[in-house]
């Protein structure tokens, strides 16, 4: 295929958009420095946007061999890329922040409510037991309660 005819910036931009979006879950979420703020992904989106802009200019150029087809393809993939980037940004900067205020949660200095819940073997475990049952023969200094969303 004649390289001059292939609108490579459009395809490269689209590919980079996909990589930018999926790499967060696939790769960067495992490292705190790239999970806490998705700077690598934003960088990839920036490069993708530049490529897509070049792709649009090329796709809508008058000297395309198939001008109508070029315009349609360019429009579709640019729009798709914009939607993917928008979804990523929304997910990270908006949806992930939609958390309840939890103002009634125990504050530093307060006693936590006692509870008893089943563990992974369905055995009932109380907070008191976790705070007092010896670990390696020594009394625990405390316990870390990690509440998480579940559904892993």
């Amino acid at each position, binding site marked *: 295929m004649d390289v001059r005819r292939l609108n490579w910036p459009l395809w490269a931009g689209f590919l980079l958009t996909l990589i930018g979006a999926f790499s967060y879950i696939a790769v960067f979420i495992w490292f705190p420095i790239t999970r806490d703020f998705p700077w690598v992904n934003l960088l990839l989106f920036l490069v993708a946007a530049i490529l897509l802009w070049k792709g649009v200019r090329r796709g809508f150029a008058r000297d395309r061999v198939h001008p109508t087809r070029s315009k349609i393809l360019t429009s579709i993939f640019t729009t798709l890329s914009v939607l993917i980037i928008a979804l990523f940004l929304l997910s990270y900067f908006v949806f992930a922040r939609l958390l309840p205020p939890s103002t009634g949660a125990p504050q530093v*200095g307060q006693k936590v409510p006692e509870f008893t819940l089943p*563990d*992974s073997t369905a055995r009932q475990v109380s907070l008191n037991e976790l705070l007092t049952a010896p670990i390696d023969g020594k009394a625990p200094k*405390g316990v870390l309660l990690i509440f*998480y969303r579940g*559904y*892993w």
Partner: protein
Amino acid sequence: MAISVDSPEVSRNLMQQAGYTFPFLSDQKTEVIRRYDLLHAGAGENGTDIARPAELLVDKTGTVRWINLTENYFVRARPEDVLDKANLLE
């Protein structure tokens, strides 16, 4: 120890896959989650109620020494920071 609305079976799978050895407790009716005001209503699959992420460091008298309520559920407490706080317990 970890608390969520996951059932004991789901927690067991997770523990096996990830190699966790600490206790995983199941609060399927969100009773404890509500008592701690950590409920995130309708945020789970199919609109079920789940917990919002939170870490509480409790000392042997049952008193909260540190609590982390993240503003973004992608951002969690880093292990080194938690260990630093835990090492301050007497």
